[in-house]
């Protein structure tokens, strides 16, 4: 019997929220208290933010975390 492992991939809609609010990465970074490189990395999927930062982003966009961040299952 073989066990298939699934890996969870965190995806986000941060760029969509940012576009809706019409703010730049630089402005968002300043509001949230991180560097622009971090916003770029989150949007590009290169970095998964901590729970605290995820809550800060959700609070900034007046929504909940699941609306911005979700997980997709990937089979290995």
């Amino acid at each position: 019997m073989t066990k298939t492992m699934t890996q969870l991939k965190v995806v986000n809609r941060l760029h969509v929220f940012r576009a809706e609010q019409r703010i730049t990465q630089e402005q968002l970074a300043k509001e949230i208290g991180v560097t622009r490189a971090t916003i770029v990395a989150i949007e590009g999927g290169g970095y998964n933010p901590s729970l605290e930062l995820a809550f800060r982003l959700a609070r900034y966009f007046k929504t909940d975390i699941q609306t911005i961040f979700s997980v997709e299952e990937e089979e290995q």
Partner: protein
Amino acid sequence: MKKWEAILLKSFLYGLPILVVYAVFSYSVDWKNVPQSDNVLRMLYDLGGLILGVWMILAVSLSLRLIFSGNFREATLAKLTLIKERDERESFLTGRAAKSTMLASIAILIFLFCLSCFQVYYYTLPPEQVVEGKTKVISLGMRLDLFADEAGKAADAAAGGKSLWSYSGLPFSSSSIILGLIIWQIGFYHFSIKRMMK
């Protein structure tokens, strides 16, 4: 960082260029031919010596402070080595880069340790010890000393023969190895973090 620690650090850093000027000055003057009556030159030399003495005391107290005070170490060395931790992502990358730097440094230290233990001697035998016409010998060995033992290092493996080539430990001074490791650590850390940021 406390105020006196900041003063200590600034005095140490600002003293460095003064010492460089002092070193250049000391080497450029031919002290054997300077007349005893040249008080200005002698006074400058003595003043430089005094600054060097004070700077050495500062350097020792600063390095002790760096060892024992975690906050001071973080505030000072992070600035000197250009470590940036402006947000959680940079802290995360710093941790990963520090880990890879530590592991790479341990690998290098193991390599240096091996090199420092190995001994190789290649020499010709004295005529009375020649066996079956074989005049040249390669001698391999290992040596582990906790303390520097120059007399032991210089032990003549050739035992009366003529040494053609020998290797007994690293050919670098302890200062140059320590300086090399400091430069390596900072350099490899920045290389790692740049690679991770891409």
